[in-house]
């Protein structure tokens, strides 16, 4: 703990002594003041015999604002012990806990980060076995288990929904996870690999390779024709050849894509960035670089397994097909 402080450029050993001396002097000072006051007797001018107990003076003789008097109501003797107890308490506290600067860690060696670690460990011991049991089951079994889905959904909402949306249907640049269309494959293994290692989908800029502005437009029209979308057939015919020589390397001669490379299927109407000629031309011209981060450091293995099963279940209502056969 002390090491963290010393690494800071704002740290000076002066503050350790400042804190320690100020604390200890104040506590001891309180005790001394208390002791002196408890044996103090004050001479006052007062009416005798009118006090709360017969024979005691009625007031302490202090008068403010002409008529505001302080009545003589002494505290009971035992009360002073409460003050001494607080003095002893603070000294014991400072021995047990790190309250005197960074040089003293306290007998209990307590720290807030240490307490956090303890709590995390306790939670892992409590919930670990539950997660482990789920992690042994394949996706199709978990998809049919409402408890596993509920856990998976919560993990998804806390970690994945920021990009893919609460309904997992994505948005521009972030794939829809619920439509059964997988860029990197939809098998249990593929989904787990995506979650564990992340993915980096790169479409290189191809403007020059397909022949400049006109070439790009031709290819874009051909790409649109693959999914039967509205396109200019003359331009598409010109683009066909270029597609087969340049683009087919990743997207395949028929444009069906390649999950091993993350090359999307161009024959369906699912567009990650948009399906207009302009957007497709932009993609061809400037390329795309898309990153799915790795969750290895963020989630535990069983958590990744559960959230993967939840994502898988979105495109497999009521476990319609076994996970192994779902690969595309």
């Amino acid at each position, binding site marked *: 703990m002390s090491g963290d402080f010393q690494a800071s450029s704002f740290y000076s050993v002066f503050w350790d002594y400042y804190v320690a001396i100020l604390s200890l002097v104040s506590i001891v000072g309180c005790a001394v003041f208390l002791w002196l006051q408890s044996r103090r007797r004050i001479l006052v*001018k*007062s009416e005798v015999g009118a006090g709360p107990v017969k024979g005691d003076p009625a007031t302490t*003789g202090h008068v403010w604002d002409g008529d505001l008097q302080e009545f003589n109501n002494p*505290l009971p*003797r035992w009360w002073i012990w409460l003050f001494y107890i607080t003095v002893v308490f603070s000294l014991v506290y400072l021995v047990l806990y790190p309250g005197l600067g960074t040089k003293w860690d306290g007998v209990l060696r307590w720290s807030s980060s240490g307490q956090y670690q303890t709590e995390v460990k306790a939670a892992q011991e409590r919930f670990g076995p539950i997660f482990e049991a789920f992690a042994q089951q394949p996706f199709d079994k978990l998809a049919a288990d409402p408890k596993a889905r509920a856990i998976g959904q919560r993990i998804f*909402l806390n970690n994945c*929904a920021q990009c893919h*949306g*609460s*309904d997992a249907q994505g948005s521009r640049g972030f794939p829809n996870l619920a439509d059964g269309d997988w860029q990197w494959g939809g098998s249990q293994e593929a989904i787990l690999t995506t979650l564990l290692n992340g993915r980096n989908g790169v479409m290189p800029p191809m403007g020059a390779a397909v022949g400049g502005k006109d070439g790009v437009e031709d290819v874009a029209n051909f790409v649109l024709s693959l999914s039967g979308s509205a396109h200019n057939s003359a331009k598409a015919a010109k683009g066909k050849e270029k597609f087969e020589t340049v683009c087919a390397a990743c997207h395949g001669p028929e444009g069906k894509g390649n999950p091993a490379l993350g090359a999307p299927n161009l024959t369906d109407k699912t567009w990650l960035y948009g399906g207009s000629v302009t957007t497709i031309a932009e993609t061809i011209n400037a390329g795309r670089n898309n990153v799915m981060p790795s969750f290895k450091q963020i989630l535990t293995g069983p958590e990744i397994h559960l959230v993967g099963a939840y994502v898988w279940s979105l495109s497999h209502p009521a476990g319609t097909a076994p996970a192994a056969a779902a690969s595309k």
Partner: protein
Amino acid sequence: MEAKEAQRPAAVPAPAGGVQEVEVVLYAKRKEIYPRQKIGDSLGIFQKWRWAFVWLTQIVFYGLPWLTWNGRQAVLFDLAERKFYILGLVLWPQDIIYLTGILIIAALSLFLFTAVGGRLWCGYACPQTVYTEVFMWIERLFEGDRAKRMALDKQPPSARKVLRKTAKHAAWIALALWTGYTFVGFFTPIRELGVEILTLQVGGWALFWVLFYGFATYGNAGWMREQVCKYMCPYARFQSAMFDQDTLIVTYDTERGEPRGAGSKTKDRKGAGLGDCVDCGLCVQVCPTGIDIRNGLQYECIGCAACIDACDFVMERAGMPKGLVRYATEHSLAGRYGRKGIVEHILRPRVFVYAGILLVVIVALATALALRVPLKVDVIRDRGSLATEAEDGSVVNTYRLTVINTTEQPREFTLSAEGLPGLRVESATRFTVPAATTDAVPMRLAAPAGSVPPGSNKIVVVVTAVDDPGVSVHEKTAFLGLRH
């Protein structure tokens, strides 16, 4: 405070000493008080009132945790689960406003009762008074009343003394522990707690609080007593700020009583130049705070009216009218108005203001509770994305609903949205939330391309229980249109 007490010397015959130079100390030894509990054979009228409140409050306190409701403890403040069960009502942390309402009602009631009748709360209903009364009753069983207790304390240690004192403390501790157990039983199921204690499996914190509250009861009602009211209680201090000259307080009628003096025959008193006070000292003997009410209003007085009961008993015996010590206002004692005037002056502006605000808050709280819907909905638009365009050109927004079903049964709800032409819910419109659970429900809203103006549009999401259309929440949110 000081202004009130400054009147004291005026009410007392001039002290003999005059002004002198004397020594005062900041801390003084506490003088043991032995309040006399029994005068005559029956309880005085105000003592009866106090015992009525002892029974009323303690039957509720000790009995309530044992009631069951729908198979669970009827009243349980489950701090770990953050749910308060009060009979059929289940309060969630979101319902904290009702606690605020209850606190306002409690504060205003204190203002109102104090303005009308002084420290009524202190004298009759405060736990400190109630437990002290019970503990003193136990004390009397083992040690006898005032005179016997004083004699016993003066005796040198003997087997009889040790036995009586030990028995008294044992009885006190037993009651105190039961009180601690009951108190913790409001926060953790009391039957399970009982089994855990009997089988020595009780958890550390539950045991700590049982012992802590038990210790507090034993210490406060057995040992501390009037010192709690005199030195610790903040209410005692600020209640005197709510007194005025028309507040009913426990007072001694100086004009009628003085000059005091013992005299056997009623007829002789006037001739002998004596007032009605026979100076029997019973009002001082019964006082739980050890003051002499004949010295006028004092900050120690908790308004328990034990001195009224004592004095009335004596007056009756002496054949004089009761009420030498009585509930009266300072103005009435000063002769500004008579008995009827006291009642008339209770109805003064501050009383109307307190009562008026109190009534408004009570009605507002009751209405809010009656109209409370056991369903809470939060609609959160997905922050990660603006609007998206579906294949058919319609505009899509995604939301997350946090739905809390606060009832103790699972419930099915329907989901709809309104506010834009053609707005529809594309995700599931029916869902079930388990009993007393918070669920996250993703929601996807779509509207036809032409019907959504660009930018933010106000819409309303409606969640309604399938079995009861009255259980429905309308929640405002925004639907973003696309800018092209």
